[in-house]
């Protein structure tokens, strides 16, 4: 299973350009050990940065499956045009950057039958006019095997 997902072109309803987001993880197979430092470089292409009003970068886990979605954000950073928010950000460069955080010990990525836990880096761009665009890039925390239904209990 390849967790790397690269955005492809998509047209927005307004005459905005179509962003292409690339996130590169500094890890083989996008696999991280609990407590390890995540280092990911992102790059947005195909969009005029003057149309971007804000950029949100986050590292989060979320649940998938039969239940309602639960979301846990371990890193969040929002930078707005004309306002420097992050210390590491020099000037307004919304279309390239690096995310570097120490990952928590849990929850580990998990592929269950009715509960799944996924880790991702999300990049959300806000454009002039209020429309937003989010790009999500999966990585794996830990190496838990995929769950399979057990054999029924012998009567």
């Amino acid at each position, binding site marked *: 299973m390849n967790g790397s997902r690269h*955005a492809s072109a998509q047209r927005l309803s307004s005459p905005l350009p179509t962003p292409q987001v690339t996130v590169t993880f500094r890890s083989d197979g996008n696999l991280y050990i609990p407590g390890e430092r995540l280092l990911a470089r992102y790059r947005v292409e195909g969009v005029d940065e003057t149309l971007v009003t804000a950029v949100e970068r986050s590292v989060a886990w979320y649940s998938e499956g039969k239940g309602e979605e639960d979301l846990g954000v371990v890193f969040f950073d929002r930078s707005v045009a004309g306002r420097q928010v992050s210390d590491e950000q020099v000037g307004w460069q919304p279309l390239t950057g690096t995310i570097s955080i120490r990952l928590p010990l849990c929850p580990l990525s998990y592929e269950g039958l009715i509960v799944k836990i996924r880790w991702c880096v999300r990049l959300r761009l806000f454009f002039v006019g209020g429309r937003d665009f989010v790009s999500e890039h999966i990585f794996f925390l830990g190496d838990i095997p995929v769950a399979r239904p057990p054999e029924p209990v012998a009567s």
Partner: protein
Amino acid sequence: MRLPSFFSKKRGERRTGLPAWGSLGEALYYAVLLAAGLVIGGLMLTGVAVPEWRINNRFVEVSGRLVGKGVARHTTVDLFGARRQAWRPAVLVEYPVNGELVQSWNTAGLAETSSRREVAVGLLAEQELGQTVPCWYDPDQVTTVVLKRGYSWWFWLLTLLLPGALVAFGGSGLLHAAGGWGRSEERQAAEVWAVLQRLARPLAEADGYPTIPACDNLVNSPGTVLRFRLPTESPEAWTVLGSGLFAGLWNAVVVVLAIGAGFDVAGGRIDWWLLGLLAPFSLVGLLAIWLFLRRVLLVTAIGPSHLEISDHPLRPGGCYDVLLSQAGSVAFRRLELVLELEEQATYRQGTDVRTERQVVWREVVRRWNRVEPLPGTPFEAEVQVRVPLRAMHSFHSTHNAVSWRLVLRGQPERWPALVRVFPVVIFPASEAVAAGASPAVSHKRHEVAS
């Protein structure tokens, strides 16, 4: 011209949309509920609550005299043009206001409106002309007088409950919508998480291990042989409690009906409908008592199960001693101890909230056949439980959970099957164990080291 999309559209991993429109729709929905609550509450307050409060706090008490009586007719026309008349007893009260006598008709508090005139006339027989009655008049409009005071508590309760619920639901939703206005779900989650970290944790978690349930309740009972005695989550206990409650409530209803029927019979009147209803109700009541007693007997006859463990919480790859003790005098055809991993997902279906559980991993720790306990001595066995090296840790969040448990299953000789659940918590593997557990992680560790 393209209309704006109200909802985000999900295409693969990218979603686009106008979040402000979604927030606006949500805010409008809650604003309507809030407005409805305020309007209904206002109508109830001005229509009932405020007049009642004025009667009890502002009206002036005087001693009046009944100087006349009659019936008040109320005529209504329904949708089809038919006229209907209703009757209500009324009395003419004379009372002093600032030295002058004032007369006023009053119907409130005498009786309910009746569709039959003779009923209203009959009720007037209780009122004697010339009798002195306490009454209260409105100082702002002296011809408004009442013969009774008090509060309609049920109406006050309705005034608080119905509009109050709408105001609370609409107001909190509106605040939530306003708080999320223009904010992404990640931003909201990050901000809510920061607030929760400061105030309180919604779910008890182990220190340093977010989303792993705290196991304080699992390690606060020392074992007699091993370190900890695990608490049980026996479904039988809930079944006994449920059947006991049902039997108690049902038979209480039967007793009330039987007392009513008994008084009727003693008074020489037989209500066949009531007696006919009582017979099947009594049968169901007896059946409920029998089922409850049977379940109590089942639990007490099989006896309690105890499980002790050498350490807790558990770790992947770890090996733990477990002592099983099964008291009671019941012989088992088969008894087995199982380690299970169960997933639990909670979701909405319409207006219902449902929880689905599924066991995704199961391993029999030990199975015993033909267990014959000695009199006065519980069946005891010490076994070893090995947690798989790459086991998922325990996990719980608001709507999802992954739980580990030791399950004791037994098939007694002449009783229904026994199931007793002992929850355990598994933490993630320590880094050293994790490095050797997975080829991918092991390779990665090697790279990091070099």
